[in-house]
């Protein structure tokens, strides 16, 4: 069967099963993009509502953290290495791009391996990697610290702003106001974590969840599996993305995370502090911890006036519900991070809005 025939069959089955309202949340920015791009929302029966969760690591980074690294970037003798998504994310008064235009040394890297290379080539400078990301990315940052330790690269450090997916899911699943019936779990995060950290969604809260791949067909198949669980009165963590995700995840990657990082409370944009939801470097590795090496300003809570990213990240609103969406706030003139990051809900909606506006 071709992709088209398979999707047509799945959509027909989904329509037949969607007898009652069913609200699904996807918790991965790559899913947000795949859904917006493929137009899946408008192919689904109206009973099925797809909302986006806090699945874009850039978007959930709090304004106070952004202001802190912007201040760090302005210290002399320092090179900031960052994934490209962070470059235009606005803090309270500026962003990395503007600071770079003003003379700061800010470099976009594809990998922490590139950041290490910058450190090797610039021994007289301090290189700070901005550690943004979930469980897919965190093990790669852990390996970079191991390499730095092995090579005695004393000028490499990480500003760890990493976040963990299961604790934020718990906040969302507990919130009765959000009324989420089932979850589309993030495929590559689960390739590291496996199914166990997601069991509570079914066991404690009685809600189905399915670990999904990233093709439109994966997402349709996932929605079908979630509906099937509901129809059969089951709630489990199932894997749709079996071609990558194993039940046990990747234990070696988790070992790396545990060896170099320790769990701390973390502030999520628009959601607030979630206990035990972030990772910082362990004290043993403080020579690679930018927070220990440099003087950073205390985090100050600020809000971007009018920006509804917080409610969008919780699936309470869809981007077009924000009064600034597409007017004051566009990808060229973004007001909030959900419009800057290519995986942010607002950017994904804006880019493909022709198809997704009526969601």
């Amino acid at each position, binding site marked *: 069967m071709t992709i088209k025939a398979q999707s047509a069959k799945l959509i027909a089955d989904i329509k037949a099963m969607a007898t009652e309202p069913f609200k699904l949340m996807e918790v991965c920015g790559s899913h947000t993009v795949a859904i917006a791009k493929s137009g899946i929302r408008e192919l689904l029966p109206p009973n099925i509502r797809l909302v986006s969760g806090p699945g874009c690591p850039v978007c959930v980074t709090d304004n106070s953290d952004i202001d802190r690294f912007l201040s760090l970037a302005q210290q002399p003798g320092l090179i900031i290495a960052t994934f490209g998504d962070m470059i235009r994310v606005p803090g309270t008064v500026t962003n990395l791009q503007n600071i770079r235009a003003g003379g700061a040394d800010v470099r976009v890297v594809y990998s922490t391996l590139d950041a290490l290379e910058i450190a090797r080539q610039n021994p007289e400078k301090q290189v700070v990697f901005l550690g943004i990301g*979930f469980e897919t990315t965190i093990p*790669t940052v852990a390996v970079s610290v191991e390499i730095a330790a092995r090579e005695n690269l004393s000028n490499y450090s990480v500003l760890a702003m990493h976040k963990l997916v299961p604790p934020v899911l718990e906040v969302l699943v507990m919130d009765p106001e959000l009324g989420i019936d089932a979850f589309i779990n993030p495929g590559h995060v689960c390739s590291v974590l496996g199914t166990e950290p997601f069991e509570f969604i079914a066991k404690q809260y009685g809600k189905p969840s399915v670990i999904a791949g990233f093709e439109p067909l994966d997402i349709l198949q996932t929605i079908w599996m979630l509906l099937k669980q509901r129809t059969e009165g089951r709630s489990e963590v199932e894997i749709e993305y079996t071609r*990558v995700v194993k039940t046990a995840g990747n234990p*070696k990657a988790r070992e790396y995370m545990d060896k170099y990082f320790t769990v701390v409370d973390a502030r999520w944009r628009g959601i607030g502090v979630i206990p035990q939801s972030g990772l910082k470097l362990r004290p043993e590795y403080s020579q690679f911890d930018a927070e220990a090496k440099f003087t950073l300003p205390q985090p100050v809570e600020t809000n971007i006036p009018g920006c509804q990213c917080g409610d969008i990240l919780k699936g309470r609103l869809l981007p077009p519900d924000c009064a600034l969406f597409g007017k004051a706030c566009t990808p060229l003139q973004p007001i909030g991070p959900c419009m800057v990051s290519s995986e942010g809900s607002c950017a994904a909606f804006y880019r493909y809005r022709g198809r997704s506006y009526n969601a």
Partner: protein
Amino acid sequence: MCLAIPGKVILTTEHTAEVDLMGNRRKVNIDLVADEVKPGDYLLIHAGYAIEKVDEEIALETLALFEEALEKSDY
């Protein structure tokens, strides 16, 4: 940001592998993969690191999905 794509291993050294990533040759770190990595294996690559070894059949299926999806971008 959590996206990962499969690449085919061309050669390996202690911590790295050179892979063919959709036609481009790239050096990736393999420390996160528990199994032994050999030329011909398929690895799932995220931000310069292999995060998982995948079966050849499955990798080819995934790549075919990518390609079919690319061709039918009117999907």
